[in-house]
């Protein structure tokens, strides 16, 4: 991830790029608005940097646990009609999605 921009420097272009990655349609006015709001959020989060953590070990997870695993045993899946009931559209027992413009799977 790119390093956060300096205080207040989140550009419209960066917001547009993020919106594209998130597949969000954002209007020009909103770009302006969000750039300001997101900058404020980043500034707020950046205050974490003020904490003196010289003597603190990095926390990797909120819960201090490791190796939580399950045995490799297959269990029943959902019935297909239930699965496809959640799809915006279905065809041939598959999820139907709009034409894909990205690269081939």
């Amino acid at each position: 991830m790119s390093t956060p921009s300096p205080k207040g420097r989140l550009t419209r272009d960066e917001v547009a790029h993020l919106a594209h990655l998130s597949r969000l349609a954002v209007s020009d006015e909103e770009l302006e608005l969000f750039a300001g709001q997101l900058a404020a959020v980043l500034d707020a989060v950046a205050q974490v940097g003020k904490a003196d953590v010289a003597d603190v070990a990095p926390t990797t997870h909120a819960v201090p646990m490791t190796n939580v695993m399950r045995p490799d045993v297959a269990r029943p899946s959902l019935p297909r009609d239930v699965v496809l009931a959640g799809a915006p559209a279905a065809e041939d027992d598959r999820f139907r999605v709009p034409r894909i413009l990205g690269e081939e799977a």
Partner: protein
Amino acid sequence: MSDTLVDFDEVLTRYEPVIGLETHVELGTASKMFCGCSTTFGAEPNTQTCPVCLGLPGSLPVVNAEAIESTIRIGLALGCRIASWSRFARKNYFYPDIPKGFQTSQYDEPLCTAGHLDVELDGETYRVEIERVHIEEDTGKNLHVGGSTGRIHGADHSLVDYNRAGIPLVEIVTRPIPGAGAKAPEVARAYVTELREILLALGVSEVRMEQGNLRSDVNTSLAPIGSLDWGTRTETKNVNSLRSVERSVRFEMRRQAAVLDAGERVVQETRHFHEDTGSTSSGRSKEEATDYRYFPEPDLVPIAPDEEWIEKLRAALPELPAARRARLREEWGLSDTEMAWIVNAGALGLVSDTVAAGATPADARKWWLGELARRANDSGVELTELAVTPEQVAELAGLVAAGTVNDQLARQALDGVLAGEGDPAAVVESRGLAVMGDSDELVAAVEAAIEGNPDVAEKVRSGKVQAIGALVGAVMKTTRGKADAATVKRMLEERLVSG
């Protein structure tokens, strides 16, 4: 589409290739990586999904222990360092084959790092350094509808089957491999071949390339000979046969040389390989790595394998292919070349099993590389797909060795075995294929041949011993090949020569 290509040998007069491979292996676990859905291949679409692998809100993943062990075992077999602390990360991207909007993968904390794999090629050893081995999940399968070719261009819409989404997928990444020169395409192929053998020996995957269990992204770049810097690489995606791995490198070397010769720059991009033409074409440039916005997966805790666990897995590793080949070559008394033929024919396991079933190494090798290879080739199938087991081949070789059948009758017995008529001995019995001993029937056939060919018989009597072949042939014909030619010859000689 019609790329200019430079002749392969000419490429090497000016450029030095560097290759690299990222290989994805679907593990053969019973259940998916983060949920209990079955992984059975070929099930009806969307019958092996659940809230976790569909990415439904509120669902929580739990790691498959077997998949972690398999990944560590692969790492150990490749001489990797196993991390004592490893985490999952979310690789965010939008594509309908990933219902969650991200792939659960590993980023900066993979399970295994810094290994190597030695690849033998034409008597030389190439050391391929392994950068990392990590675990992630496979994606769903898209079916593009409406396009004439089934490729994306022109597709109206896509249909997605999520049965494959969430199947454990191990990614094995090499470091760049320089210095292979003209052998670069073959080294790439030999590497994937050897990796496949290791995975088979470990039993962690079915590694059926045609089913997509094993697929490689093949990186190729060229640099002018003597240059200190490497060239810009391209990445040919999802190459799923050994032959295609080799061809894709060869094609990219020829194409990139033409680009560089023209004074242009190679574009860093993903490319698709086309089986029919052996060529590659430009894929769409994918979002840059930084755009995947990797971050640690908050729903999964770290994997921290302790020494005891790792050593237990190490101790349980099977004999690896290179060691096994060396041992068998020694045991069977074969030369390197003879061994290479067996290996290249994909017959090592079959020959080994046939020897284990009682055949001599020479017989086992002769059957599998001779008659059986011919049958497989004629039917367009792999040796392993022939309807004959190593035990049956050993039995057949035993019948020949005991003199029950000769080579020709053995081939007829094989016909019966392949036709599902039973084991060789049963086929010999039911088809009446056993060679005739010194029986009355054979005596009659021998005497009939002499009487029926008085001219020939006379020639033999008068000293032209080589004429006896025609009489042997006559006996073989009347007995429909069931007589033993050496016995027939001896019987004829007794009657015509020794007197």
